[in-house]
Every structure is written in C-alpha cells, then in structure tokens.
C-alpha cells in the first residue's frame, strides 16, 4: 500500500505537500470503502437473485413489485432493515448481543481483502492469503456462538452451538481441500495461485484439470465450504422448521441485517476461493492479460473473475433450493467420517502426483507431447 502511495504522490503533483503516511492511510480507507461498497452491492443483488432463483425453481414468480420485475426489491429490503425497530430481549446479555453481529460481519467482510479480483486488483496480496481467509472467518464462529448465547433463547442457543460445531468441523476439510492448489503454486498467496494457472489455452491450465486428485479436490472443497458457511443443505443452524431461525432468531433491524449480509458475503468468498484456487481465477482463456494496457487488462480480468465467481454463486443457490436438509448427526458424520479422511487421502494423492511427475499436470504433459 505504501508503494502505491509513493507512486501516487509522484504522479499527482498536488499531493507533494501531504505527508506520506496520510496518503497511505487515505488510500487504505479508500480501498476498504471500495471493497465495502462492492460487498454490500453484491450482498444486496445476491439476495434478490437468490429469491428470483428460488422462485424459478419452485415454479413461482418471486419478488416482482418494487421496480421493474422487482429489481429494486433489495433496496426496499435494505431500507426496511435499517428503519426497523431494534429489539433486544429483556433477558439478553446486552453487550454481547450487540457485539455478536459485528464479529460475524467483520469476519466475513475482512476476507474480501485478499480476493484477487484482477491482474492488479487485490486490496492486499498477503503471502499467507489462504490462511488469512481461514483465520478471519474463524471470527464468524465466535460471533455466531455469542449471538446464540447472548440471546438467552433456546432456539438461538441450539442454533449457535450447531453452527459453531459445524464451522469448526468443516474448517478442516476446507483447508485440506485447498492445499493442493497451494502445493501446485508453491505459495499461499492467492495472486500466486492464480498466476500459476495461466497458459495452456487458459482453460487447461486450471488446477481443476491439473490431475485427477485436484479435480476431486474441487468438489470436496465446494461441498465442505457450503457446509462451513451454513448453506443449505447444511443450514442446520438456521433450520427454520426445527429451530425457528437459529442463532439470529432474536435479532431484528440492522443487527439482523449484518448477519444477513455476512451470509451472502461468505457465499461470495467461497465462490471466489473456488474460482481462484481451481478455476483459473482472473486468467482469461486463450489470451494473456499481461500484454494489455493496465486498465484494460484489469477490467477484462475483473470481468472474467466475476463471471466465474457469480456462476459459482448461482450453482450454490441452485443447490440450496433443490436439496433437502441433512440431519445434525449425519452432518457431523459426513465431515469427520467422510470428508476429512477423503481430503487427507486426496492431499496425499496430489503430493505424490507432484513428486512423481515433478509438478506437471496432465494437460501440461499432453501439451509437451505436441511440443
């Protein structure tokens, strides 16, 4: 960020008098704001799309009153959430009750910082990118637990417990399923991982097609990540038919809104990580983005990245409205008895593959056959 600030100061003579740290700070705030705006927009539009998809799948129309085809529904919803009365139950632990939504929202939003939107479009290319995502999302668990506990409500408590157990359990397969991408790139940085998937006509460089194990790995990741973010069919913490609405049952107004936004934020993070680690990230097929001028290259790669990510989000919504929910013991069994061992075996497979074939994937080998 400081390097960017220096180049900015050099480029704009007006800024010469301003101390460097001020520029850096302002830049940080600006970048954070841009990401926040993106996240909020995505979350708003996402909620609308979710309802439209739900409508389609359930053979009904979905929201169609506000604006053309109900397109502005999410704005109306947002206004409603903000204006609604904020109720705190009488016996709730007031401080924790207020604190919990922030934990959840910050945990989900902070992960956006390392999402590689384009060639140069990343807020902070941390050298531990993937671990950073896992670290900040662990805040979500704490927030969810607190929400459940502070509400002083049976359903909320049960929901919070379930959510925490689920997130902690599924964190392991998620991490293990992502490691193959790290092994291939030799780096934890998401930018490096995306870069390692360039070349080979753009599509065959993807980690998805690198070898059979990475192909498998993608599906393991996607399944486990769905569960980690409490999406249907793993949405037991909310399970409206048994737990009313789970850990957020006592929340209303903007506090509920924060949970709601965080849920969509998580959805996008899952999709973005899947895209970056397995689907080639911002790499444009048949084309080398680096050769374009900075602005066009970034715009193009941003478009490609978002297309892939949104496609993943749509698949998640599709899954969400078609599959029935698991039972809580089935859920835990699935993680510990199936996903965890499978991801470990898979990781071993990928490591062996990389060892035996010196890091070359199947498409790479085929390509080298034809020179």
């Amino acid at each position, binding site marked *: 960020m400081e390097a960017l600030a220096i180049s900015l100061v050099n480029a704009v003579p007006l800024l010469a008098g301003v101390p460097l740290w001020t520029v850096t700070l302002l830049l940080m705030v600006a970048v954070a704001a841009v990401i926040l705006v993106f996240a909020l927009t995505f979350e708003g539009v996402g909620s609308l799309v979710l309802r439209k998809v739900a409508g389609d799948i359930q053979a009904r129309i979905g929201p169609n009153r506000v604006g053309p085809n109900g397109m502005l529904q999410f704005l109306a919803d947002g206004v409603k959430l903000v204006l609604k009365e904020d109720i705190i139950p009488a016996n709730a632990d007031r401080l924790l009750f207020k604190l919990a939504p922030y934990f959840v929202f910050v945990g989900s939003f902070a992960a956006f910082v390392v999402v590689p939107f384009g060639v140069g479009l990343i807020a902070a290319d941390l050298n531990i990118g993937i*671990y950073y995502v896992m670290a900040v999302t662990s805040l979500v668990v704490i927030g969810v637990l607190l929400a459940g*506990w502070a509400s002083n409500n049976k359903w909320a408590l049960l929901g919070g417990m379930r959510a925490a157990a689920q997130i902690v359990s599924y964190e392991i397969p998620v991490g293990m399923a992502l490691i193959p991408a790290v092994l291939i790139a030799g780096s*934890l940085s998401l930018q490096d991982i995306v870069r390692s998937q360039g070349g080979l006509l753009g599509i065959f460089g993807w980690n998805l097609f690198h070898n059979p194990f990475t192909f498998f790995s993608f599906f393991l990741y996607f399944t486990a990540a769905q569960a980690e973010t409490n999406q249907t069919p793993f949405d037991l913490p909310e399970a409206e038919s048994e737990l009313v609405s789970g850990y957020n049952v006592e929340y209303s107004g903007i506090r509920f809104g924060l949970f709601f936004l965080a849920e969509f934020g998580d959805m996008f993070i899952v999709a973005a990580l899947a895209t970056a680690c397995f689907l080639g990230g911002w790499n444009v097929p048949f084309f080398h983005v680096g050769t374009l001028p900075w602005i066009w290259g970034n715009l193009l790669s941003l478009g490609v990245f978002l297309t892939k990510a949104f496609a993943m989000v749509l698949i998640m919504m599709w899954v969400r409205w078609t599959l029935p929910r698991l039972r809580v013991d089935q859920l835990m069994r699935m993680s510990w008895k199936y996903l965890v061992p499978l991801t470990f075996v898979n990781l071993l497979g990928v490591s062996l593959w990389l060892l035996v074939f010196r890091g070359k994937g199947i498409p790479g080998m085929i390509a080298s056959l034809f020179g």
Partner: protein
Amino acid sequence: METVLFILFGAIAVCGAIMVVTRKHPMASALYLILTLFAVAALFVLRQAHFLAAIQVIIYAGAVVVLFIFVIMLINVPEDRLPVERATTMRVLGVLAAGFFILESAVLARRFWMPIGPVAEVGTVEAVGRALFTDYLLAFEITSVLLLAAVIGAIALAKRKI
C-alpha cells in the same frame, strides 16, 4: 511507526490478559482471551511472521477458544451462582507475589532491553516447515502420539459405554 504499533498491541495483549483473569463471568474472560490472542497475532505480523499470526488466530481464536465458549455455554452457570471471590490471606499473598514478580520482570526487561531490529526469517511458512521437519521432527512426531492418547482418553472418559 513499528515501535508505536508494538507498544499499542503489546498493551492490548497485556490488558486483555489481565482482564481474562479478573473478569467475574467466564464468557467475558473468554472474549478477552480472544482479544489477547489477536493482539499477539498482530505482534507476530509486526515481526513479519505472518504465518505464525495466521496459525495463532486459526488455532487459538478459531478452535481453542471456541471450545472454551462451547463449554461455558453448555455449563451455563446463572449469573447469581457464579462464585464470589473473597480476599483471603492466600489471595492477598498471591497478589503480593505477583506484584513482586512483575517488579522482577521489569528489572529483567530493563537489563535485557533490546531495540526492535530487523528480523530473521523465523515465522514464514518455509522457516516453520523446515524447523518442524528437521530439527524438531521428533517433537513433531511425539506430539502425534500425545494427541492420539488424548483423543482416546477423551472418548474413553466421555462415552457412556465403550
């Protein structure tokens, strides 16, 4: 800049730690523990040990404290039944001893004061991995035996019928 941040996060960590032991409600203690752990992670980041910081947050804040909170929630002691701390002789002595100890540490710190200089690569993924699989390989493997025993123990104690 770095020194300021170091002092800031160090102070947060220390204050958080003090709050952990002085809060009456276990839930509050657990939350302050999280704060302390995050502050320590921030200190790691200041020393360029990003990997350690991430691991610190994932393992401690994300898993260990979550388990603590779990247990606190399951036991769920009502507010009025929390034990009341009374100032007994032993407690007073304990506080005095702690004060003495802090004094000693301060003397220590003064004598071994070291400026925050450039750091060797100790907290990177590579450095940690290398240390773990060469010098500390035996310790690493023995940990697995320890965890195995602990897992079996947890099941043996918790399961009603084996």
